[in-house]
């Protein structure tokens, strides 16, 4: 058993004829993830690197009814209509890779997904991977087999690059990952740390979780509540990046759109709250390894 991806996962790429869509197609196939087709409005009937292209999500689904995930690689201005189209066609999991999606469009899509009971990961997500099963997007890039291997550690990250870096720490410790999820770095995200933790709580493959979060927009309070309510009972090790940013003027955005100084909470405040709630907090990012060991040997 695994979270988000299974042997039955079948992925549609929206924006499959663009550069990023094609790159994702290659990456997913290379990791033995099924991508039967894609969609690009106005390009129905074309073929993208051997995959049939449809003009609409509905057309794609009527030819490939097994599709249960959409990976969205369209420009920011087209993201809202692409996501809504996938939701309206009944796709239950939409991983939005588009970066810089306007906030009002993101809010619109998240509300629409909530109403339908569908899940959005992102926007601004790089994707997710269940080692040995498949990946959505390009997580791991060409080094995927160096960094990822099936194992007991769940990985959650606010940053795409740090998803790899954290997973690599896990591998260097001689362990593997049950899943790695990049939730995205934007202010509004459809699947938060706590949402993934809930999935990992119910996932027998996950024995412990490591999490990279950042100063700024506050999604950590949800984790605190989840821990207090007993909604997550496995060991959890967390690092919050951006302690240095306390010295920057309020309103400065560092690295990710959601890492806004003075909005939400500082790295120190977040670490203190999580520690109080029972999470293991790593002062140094690299110490997450030792915390992993202390949890898995316990």
């Amino acid at each position, binding site marked *: 058993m695994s979270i988000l991806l299974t042997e039955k996962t079948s992925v549609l790429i929206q924006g499959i004829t663009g550069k990023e869509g094609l790159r994702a197609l290659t990456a997913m196939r290379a990791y033995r993830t099924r991508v039967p087709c894609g969609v690009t409005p106005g390009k129905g009937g074309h073929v993208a690197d051997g995959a049939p292209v449809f003009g609409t999500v509905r057309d794609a689904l009527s030819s490939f009814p097994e599709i249960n995930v959409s990976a969205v690689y369209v420009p920011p201005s087209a993201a809202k209509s692409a996501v809504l189209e996938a939701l309206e066609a009944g796709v239950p999991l939409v991983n939005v890779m588009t970066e810089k999606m306007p906030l009002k469009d993101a809010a619109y899509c998240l*509300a629409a997904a*909530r109403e339908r009971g569908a899940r959005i990961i992102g926007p601004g997500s790089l994707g997710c991977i269940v080692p040995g099963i498949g990946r959505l997007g390009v997580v791991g890039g060409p080094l995927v087999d160096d960094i990822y291997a099936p194992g007991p550690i769940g990985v959650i990250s606010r940053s795409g690059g740090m998803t790899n*870096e954290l997973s690599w720490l896990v591998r260097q410790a001689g362990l593997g990952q049950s899943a790695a999820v990049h939730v995205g770095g934007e202010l509004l995200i459809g699947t938060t740390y706590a949402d993934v933790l809930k999935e990992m709580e119910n996932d027998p493959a996950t024995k412990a979780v490591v999490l990279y979060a950042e100063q700024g927009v506050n999604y950590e309070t949800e984790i605190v509540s989840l821990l207090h309510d007993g909604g997550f009972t496995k060991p959890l090790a967390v690092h919050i990046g951006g*302690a240095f940013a306390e010295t920057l003027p309020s309103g400065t955005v560092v690295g990710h759109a959601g890492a806004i100084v003075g909005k939400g909470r500082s790295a120190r405040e977040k670490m203190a709250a999580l520690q109080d709630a029972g999470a293991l907090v790593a002062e140094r*990012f690299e110490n997450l390894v030792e915390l992993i060991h202390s949890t898995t040997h316990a």
Partner: protein
Amino acid sequence: MNVCEHEGKTLLAKHGIAIPAGILISGIEEIEAATKSLGGCWVVKAQILEGNRAAHGGVVFCESVSDVEKTVSAWLARGVNGQPVERMLLEEHIVAARELYVSCLYDAASRGPLLLVGRHGGSGVETREDIRSFPIDSRDPARSLEGIFGELGLIAKALPELCEKLVKAFFEEDARQIEINPVAERADGSLVALDAKVALDDAVHDRSAFGASYRALSGDIATLFSGGGASLVNMDAMQRAGLRAANYAEYSGNPPKEKVRELATLVLSKPGLRGALIVGGIANFTDVKETFEGIAEALDALKPSYPIVVRRAGPREREGLALLRACAERNGLRIELFGKETSMDDAVTRMKTLAL
């Protein structure tokens, strides 16, 4: 992206929200004419992006022209709380029967817009508990508002209309946050926005090139990071190691080498550097070779004598690192190159040793 008060107020006025009569000035010589045309007493406000502006003396009530002149010349000479002041907003003084608080913003917890309303405005309001919050459905804001008009009207008669305009401005201007604190309620019940704190959605308003950012800092170690998360973790590691960054710089995605060269040149040419850290995590899709070509070109031109530590991994990492090695050899540079076997923290520690 935060905008100054006067720009924020212009934006509110465009959507029919009343603001005080005001004139933007940038020098002492403009004061006399401005005070005359506004009449009465005035409030003079430094146009800086400072959260706690009033607490730092950036808002002053003046009863005479000489008061205004004294305040303005002090700001121009010394700034406010360390920030230089270039422009001031001179406004008519509005007599408020009471002050309210109104704000519209995107909220992480509810994953959508919220309208916040408080019966008491003014500073310190953020920590008070009497602020009511109302979720706004992005798909139909008008309907969300209809549902709360009754409640808003009980707080102040003109509040429903103000909130309607505020929410409209919020969506139409692609704002991330609009806060009006305080809103003055005058004796006749009309509402006036005395301040405007507006942040615009960077995704719409700041399409800055290719996803790179630069900020000058006061230290002596140049930094060039790849990836948002890696940049934070490395800046933190530098702080712990006692290294002071000369700048913050980050690029991500797949920038063309010309763009990386520009950024690298800016970062590496700052005078007085004692070292440079060029660090990134394990890239998913950034082409390490192409981006490093840009860095090598900058190094070829600058030939810096200070030590440089590089740590990077990802697509075409071998080619990228080989290219920098060749660049170091032909220019006689002091570069140490590391791959993913060396942690980012160890790269920072190595920098510290070399820069001593």
